[in-house]
């Protein structure tokens, strides 16, 4: 978790500022953030750091939330069979009932978008692949894979799609550094503002 940054939020009331100032001597002893907003209603409870860590399975592109662990292409290829992935996704990563996991043959010098809607090759970030396997696989036993197993399966899927070489090992440090072919080859959704048309100049 990153350190809380000093808030420049202006929503606080004068009263809250007074309260914060009264607390100032206490706060500077222990923490850096001195302008923390105080709650208005005080309903609910404060989670512990450990509780947040246990709940927080959303892995952002920087990979800061990744748990410590490691896995290899070799281990991944074994897990792909033993965990039942092959049953739905096909033994070669295609041909099953579930979405395909291996890129389509698009010839030499193919554009990454020609490989099809295949998560482990189209995703701009390696973290999305890790995150989805971790939270949503395998079908019927979601959330049962260990961190090491998720690193291994991710490594194997990247190997199948020529994103990493055979023998690669991945961990919480190396996974976010993988340069996916579409890393910069997509567009961010534009800033959304209330009361605005979906697209400026769109006739309807």
């Amino acid at each position: 978790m990153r350190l809380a940054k000093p808030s420049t939020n202006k929503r606080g009331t004068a009263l809250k500022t007074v309260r914060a100032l009264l607390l100032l001597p206490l706060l500077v002893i222990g923490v850096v953030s001195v302008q923390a907003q105080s709650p208005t209603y005080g309903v609910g409870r404060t989670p512990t750091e450990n509780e947040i860590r246990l709940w927080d399975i959303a892995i952002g592109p920087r990979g800061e939330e990744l748990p410590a662990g490691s896995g290899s292409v070799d281990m991944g290829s074994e897990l792909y069979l033993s965990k039942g992935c092959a049953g739905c996704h096909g033994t070669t990563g295609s041909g099953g009932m579930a979405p395909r996991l291996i890129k389509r043959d698009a010839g030499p010098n193919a554009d990454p978008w020609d490989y099809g809607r295949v998560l482990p090759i189209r995703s701009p970030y390696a973290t999305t692949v890790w995150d989805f396997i971790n939270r949503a696989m395998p079908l019927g036993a979601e959330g049962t894979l260990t961190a090491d197993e998720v690193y291994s399966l991710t490594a194997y899927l990247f190997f199948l799609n020529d994103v990493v070489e055979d023998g690669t090992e991945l961990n919480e440090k190396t996974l976010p550094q993988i340069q996916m072919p579409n890393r910069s080859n997509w567009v961010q959704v534009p800033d959304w503002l209330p009361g605005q048309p979906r697209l400026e100049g769109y006739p309807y």
Partner: protein
Amino acid sequence: MSQKKTDRREFLKRSAALAGAVGLGAAKPALGQDHEHTPVAPEPGAFIRGSDEMTAYGSRSRFVNSVRIPHGGRESPDAFGLDFHIATPLQDSVGEITPSSLHYMGTTRGSFVPDIDPDEHRLMVHGMVDNPIVFSMEDLKRMPSVTRKHFIECAGNRSRSSHTTIQETHGMTSNAEWTGVLLSTVLKEAGVHADADWVVAEGVEEVKGASSIPMAKAMDDCLLCYGMNGEPVRPQQGFPLRLLAPGFEGIFNVKWLRRIKVVDEYYMTYNDFGHLTRDPVNAALGYQIGPKSVITYPSGGQQLPGAGFYEIGGLAWSGGGRVSRVEISTDGGRSWTDADIRGTAEPMAHTRFSYEWTWDGSECELQSRCIDEIGQIQPSRQQALDFWSTDGERATFVKGQDNSIQPWRVARDGSVHNAIS
């Protein structure tokens, strides 16, 4: 003839008339106008016996059989008990509210509906905030609440030529009255850092579906809903807590909500991956639902009994705000007239419109067109296809969410058909 026999004969005659009335009732509601038969004042054919069930949680008439159907050619539930897409019977809708039992359902992949004890459920708000908070459902109900009508629509809600009824063409949208806490209230309570610009909303179902939502939307009108149409949110709709992102595509309205994480970049969750594109136009059209409307009566598969007066009825909505105007064409889009807006148009809510029409019995094509308060106009299918066509390549498919006008063709025999070719 004895008085007893006369009474008996009268009783039998009366019973026969009643039996006839019951039979007729299904086909011709206007019993009193049927001059072929002996006039008889309408009487109920039978009575519903009181029961503990009817006392506790009433049910609709056995003569009302409007139901949802699986959508998109996939079973729901499937052999494993997974729910997939389920479409609402808009052809039978009246007013603006979709009954909770008939509200459409969408899932990111087949899904078991979580069976959650609300006493055990928690919502955590954390990430780039000064005060991370865990709320129980009891806590959330102590917070200041709002009640608002909003539609939800699946991005895949589109009319195809193979569809015959409005349930198939438009059934993946519904409208309910939602009660809950504004997400902004909870985010202010937690104290969002100035450089945070996204939130990730996550459900507790087996895939833990998560979507990235812009902070501007989160602070504007997103709702943490525990109430739906005057009672707790239904399990298929996210009991005990769901997010409502009014006017955004269905997938953003995260059900079984357990976590709001405040972050400083687009998180590219698996749900977000579904929106991945390198076309800036597609990206811009990727979350806010466009202006849309559809005539619910007369609509595909329905039958008009003959020429004469009809009130055309329908629903209009937009992710951009209130519906400001609806226009009707009865000549296939050549001329347009304003429809009446029924009730009060509310932001990002189904709005009912009507139009007084006398059908002359000739073949015609009915269309409706929505104009919203920020000036967006619902396109014809032709306009939408023109937009997506390139030099030399004629588009046959409206990319992304399809909000184009739905034409219904009324044939001379009164049958109504999907006029999309």
